Structures are given as structure tokens and as C-alpha cells.
């Protein structure tokens, strides 16, 4: 019984994973600021959108 339930639960989660998935869309993941001077602010705002069908969670931002 437990086993059947577990199998069902796993099946359910697989189904929900494959159908209701978030989808990250970033128009320009690469951006060139061009030539700037040391006095300029070197920054850029990347715009992204969740084009999927469930909530998108940003888990980590790691600069390198």
C-alpha cells in the first residue's frame, strides 16, 4: 500500500515537473558597455522574465 502510494506520489511530482515548469528567459545575457572611463558607473540591468507556467525562483547569484 505504502509502496503504491509512493509510486503514485513520485509519478505525480514527475508530471507536475514536466508540465508546470518555470522558464527563465533573458533577452541579452551578454552586454557590452563599450568604452567607458574610470569615472563612469559601470553597471547594467539585465531584464529577465518567467516564461514558464509555475513560479521561478532565483536561488543564487554568484559573481566571478
Amino acid at each position, binding site marked *: 500500500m505504502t509502496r503504491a502510494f509512493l509510486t503514485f506520489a513520485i509519478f505525480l511530482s514527475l508530471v507536475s515537473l514536466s508540465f508546470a515548469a518555470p522558464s527563465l528567459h533573458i533577452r541579452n545575457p551578454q552586454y557590452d558597455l563599450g568604452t567607458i572611463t574610470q569615472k563612469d558607473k*559601470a553597471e547594467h540591468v539585465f531584464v529577465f522574465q518567467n*516564461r514558464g507556467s509555475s513560479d521561478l525562483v532565483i536561488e543564487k*547569484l554568484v559573481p566571478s
Partner: protein
Amino acid sequence: MASSSRLKPGEKGKIKVAVDVRGRRGRMVKKVQVSTNDPKTPRVILVLKMRVTDRIHMKKYGAAEIFKGSCSGCHIGRGKSMKGFALFLADCMTCHGTGKSGLSIVQMRTKKAGEIERAIRQGVRGTSMPGWDPKHGGPLTDEQIRGLVDAIIPAAGGRKGI
């Protein structure tokens, strides 16, 4: 950096990537790895490229200019009230780091403690090394200067620099 860490379907978000380019020159690339719960692309790398021209350091100022105005942020601001090797890393490395115009710490260690102390206190004529002693218009206290000499030439004070 990110405007929101959770987005509903269709929602838009922003990630701001900023780079400190003070003292930098040439091509620079800043990357930020974004991890999400998107099953297809759990990781996306944002790339911000730029070319930095150095309009500040191309001019030849008097050495003591670095204590003033916007220069002070990089040259004396980071090490405020620090001592010893921490102060060296914070302020001196601005010019004495790898690939910079100043002598490296390895080159400094070929000199005598007295020479190093004199250079710090009075500056070095004909170079962009200013005098850091208040008597020569500098911002450091006596204790800070002595601490720097000890950090650069460990034997001088009997203490270890690194």
C-alpha cells in the same frame, strides 16, 4: 542585485550588475552565474563587458594629489584607521600591487628598513610616491608608518609581516 527572488509566470525581474572600475584599465569582463529552478537551464551566466580608458592616471599630477578629492577614495580611504599589513593591503596595494606602477613588496624587501621608512615618510622624488608623514602633507600617524615598515620588512620590528 536581483529585484525579486520569486517570479510568477509571466512576471519580469531585474538583475543589476555593477563593477568597480576605479584604478582599472583595458578590457574587463564581469560574469554572474544565475541559478534558478528552471529545469531546462538551471544555470545562466550573465556577461558584462567593457573597455575602461584611464583618463585619470594619464595626467601627471603631483604625487600628493592622491590624498585629495576623488583620488583619496582609492588611495587613503580604504585603509582609514588600519594598521600594519592590513593597511598595506588596503592603501599601498592600490599602486604597489602586481602590474601597478609602484615597487612590489618583493622589491621593497631588497631594501633596508631605514630606506623604506624614509620613502614612506618623505616620498620618493621623481616618482608618484608621496610622503605619508603629516610633516610632508601625508595622512598617516607615526604608529601607522612604523607598523607599515614592520609589515614590509619583518625583521625590523621582530614581527612577521605575512
